[in-house]
Each structure stands twice: as C-alpha cells, then as structure tokens.
C-alpha cells in the first residue's frame, strides 16, 4: 500500500515536471523528452488492461489540458497503454509476465532496454504523426521523432537508475 501512495506521489511530481519544465525545454527547437511515459510504463503487468488504458488516456488528457493540445497526447498515450502488454509479450514468456514488475530489476537490463526502446519509439512516431496530421514536412518530422525519442529514452533510463520506487509494485 505504501508503495502505491509513493507511486502516485512520484507520478504527480513527474507530471508537474513534464508540463512546467520538459515541455518548454525543446532542445534546439525539436526534442521534447516525454518523461511522463514512465508512469504508464511502470504500471504493473498484472493490472487489468482496461484500467491501464484508462489511466493512459487520463494522463495524456492532463498533459493536453496543460499544453493546449487537446487530443494529441491523449491519443498517443492511449495507443501506448494499449500496446504495452502485447509488446511486453514479445520479449518475455506469458507465464513470467504476471510476476515481474516492468523495471530493470524485474526484467533484467537487456529485456528492459529492448522494451523501453520499442515503446518509446512507437510513442514518438505516433505523437508526431498525430501532430503533423495536416502539415507535412517529412525531414523536420523525422528530426523531431528521432531527437525526442533519444532524449526520452535517456531520461527515462536515468530516472530508473534513481531507484525511487521499490522493485515490485
């Protein structure tokens, strides 16, 4: 129980950090690190998928309201939350999935890195395609996807290394 409260508090801090600092960071005008993906990624695999998707949607909507981009983050995080379980299944057998937390300690560094890479890449591609919807400049789009992917990946890894949350929640 203690861990759940801790998780919620950390989630709030991450969301504030995202909307107040990271969203305005835009390194070189392109990259935005989406640290808040950590919140959805860290949801235990044993949780019902419906709840995971709902939480994903609500978190996306919160970020949207803060940055006046209604629907953009919500769409991308819903997709992210929906694909989380299928992508996890690609890397670990179904029997293990219920017991292990989605973290370096729970999955081992190799599997975790693969999972993180796939998920963040999916998210960055989807969010920029949603944003560009009617506005296409392929070269800038690719730069934005790549730089945001890289910075998000590094930031989430660094955040994981802080070990703020107990291994198994």
């Amino acid at each position, binding site marked *: 129980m203690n861990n759940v409260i801790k998780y919620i508090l950390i989630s709030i801090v991450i969301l504030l950090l995202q909307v107040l600092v990271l969203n305005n960071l835009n390194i070189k005008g392109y990259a935005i690190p989406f640290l808040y993906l950590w919140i959805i990624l860290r949801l235990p695999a044993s949780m019902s998928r419906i709840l995971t998707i709902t939480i994903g949607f609500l978190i996306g909507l919160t970020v949207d309201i803060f940055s006046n981009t209604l629907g953009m983050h919500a769409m991308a995080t819903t997709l992210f939350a929906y694909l989380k379980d299928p992508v996890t299944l690609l890397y670990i057998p179904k029997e293990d999935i219920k017991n292990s937390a989605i973290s370096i300690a729970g999955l081992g560094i190799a599997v975790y890195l693969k999972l993180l890479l796939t998920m963040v890449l999916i998210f960055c591609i989807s969010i920029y395609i949603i944003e560009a919807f009617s*506005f296409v400049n392929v070269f800038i789009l690719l730069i934005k996807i790549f730089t945001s992917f890289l910075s998000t990946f590094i930031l989430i890894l660094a955040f994981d290394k802080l070990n703020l949350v107990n291994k198994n929640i």
Partner: protein
Amino acid sequence: MRKLLQFLIKRFPFLIFLLYAVISIVLLVRNNPYHQSVYFSSSNNFVGSIYSFSSNVFGYFGLREVNQTLLARTGQLEQQLQALREQLRANEYELIETKNQIYREKIKSKSQEKAVKPKPNVNILQGALIMGETMPVPGADSLENKENEIWETQYEFIMAQVINNNISHYENYITLNKGERDGIKPLMGIIGHNGIVGIVTTVGPKYSVAISLLNTKLRLSAKIKESEYFGSLVWKGNDSRYAVLEELPLHVHFEIGDTIVTSGYSAAFPPGLMIGTVEDVADNKNDNFYALKIRLAAEFARLSDVQVIVNKEQEEQLEIEGKAKK
C-alpha cells in the same frame, strides 16, 4: 448470444482503446483555436494557478535580459519623445506665426474699414500673442488633432504576464495571468516589448489563453511600412524566429531590412504596430505573388510581460463585418 458475449469480453480492452481513440480524435478535430473550452485549456483556474506559481519561481531567471530589453525600449521611447517634442515646438511656432498673420490681417482690414480707432480688445489680443499663448484657430489643425484623439480614446492597454508559452508545436499557445475579471475578452491583440505576439482566444475568470503568432492556424494581415502594400503573415512551423509574409503582389517594391507592421484591417491590432523586418525572399509555390521571409521582432523564446490591447470599437467593427459577410 453467449459467443457474442465471450467475444466482447475477450475483445474488451480493444473496445476500450477504440472508445478513447475516438474521443481523442473528436477532440483533435474539433480543436478550433477560437472555440476552445475554458475547462479543457490552460485558461482554467487550476492549470492557471499552477503555471502562475511556476512562473513566479522561474520568472526570476530571465530578469536580467528582461531588464536589458526594457532599458533599450525606454531609451528608444525617450528618443522618440524628444523628437516629437521638438516637432511639436516647431509646429507651435509655425502655428503662432500663422495665427499672428491671420489676426494681423483681420486687424488691418478692420482698422481700414473703420479707420477711426482700434478696438480695445485688439491690444489684449496682441498681448496674448506676444506671450505665446495659443488661441483656438478653427480649421487649422483640427484634422490632425482628431486623429490623435481617436488613437488616445479608442485603444487602451492592460498589462499582463506570460505564465506559459510554448514554441515547439505547430500550434502554439500562450497563457496569460489576466482574465475576464481584469477586462480581457477574446480577439484582443497582444504586444510584447518589441512587437506583436498573438491574439487572445479563450478567456477564463482569472487566466486566459492566446493563440501565438507561432501557430500555423493564425493568419494575420500585415503590410510593408514604406509601401503600404499588404499581405498575409503565417508561421511555417519550423523556426521560432521567422515567419512568412504571403500573397504580396509582384509589383511591390521592397528592400531587405524593410519594416513590416500591422495593417489595421483586423480589429485586434491598430495599424502600424511592429511585426518584424524583411530578411529574405522565401520559396513560393504560387508564382503570382511574392512571399517574404520575415524576422519577427518579438522574441518568442523568452516572453515575460506583455500588453493586451483593448479596442473600444472592436465590437462594433466585428458586428458590421459579420453583417457584411452574411
């Protein structure tokens, strides 16, 4: 029936995903900058107060630069004031001169007509003129005065602080710490220290959201200051320092470095406000018009204090324009 239920239960996560996806897409498609909901934008009280708090904390970091721009701006205004004063003084002498001329002629004609003795009030008049006091002369400068009066009475300014500002999206918005309570209404223009910044779109009770000039959905009518030809200013979504002035007729003369100002055709901005300078000729898909690359005067990467323009006759103008469109 049972099979259908089983199918639904098995597919339930997908259905939920579909539901949220549809909601998001509806929100995305309906997201019109001028019809945003107060509750689902950063103009609502909760989001506004969080941004307000954070700008209170982070606002100190940029103070040095803000100070410098303010000082530069003060210097500029001081110079302008001095120039205007001198002009005014020169005009005043001219005015007194013409008045003197008129009175002298009057006196001459009157003294010629009557030829007996000058009326007593002539002396007083002459005395007043020698003292340099201004007398009302009908028709001499009333037109100019009237124009100034319109400027003074039609527009007012409300000072506001930018508490959130983004430049990384294609559609960027600015959050201000003033709202309905302070007299802010949608479609009011916003100017920064150096140039125009955006137009207010959504107004909450204490905070408001404005569409930034750096928003691909905003088109603003602008003109070249020297030639009075106008085009339409849009941002292309890549560099926060440059925008493009499109739909400029091919016969227009311009030079690199020319000033671009507001045209005054939209009710949000009075004519003649600084937007930026011509940097280059931009690539253009349409051969019948020029497109110019404009270096924006306002520094969007660091906006702090801005002024919201209250146009007292805006409602009337919009009403008439609305009627004309019907």
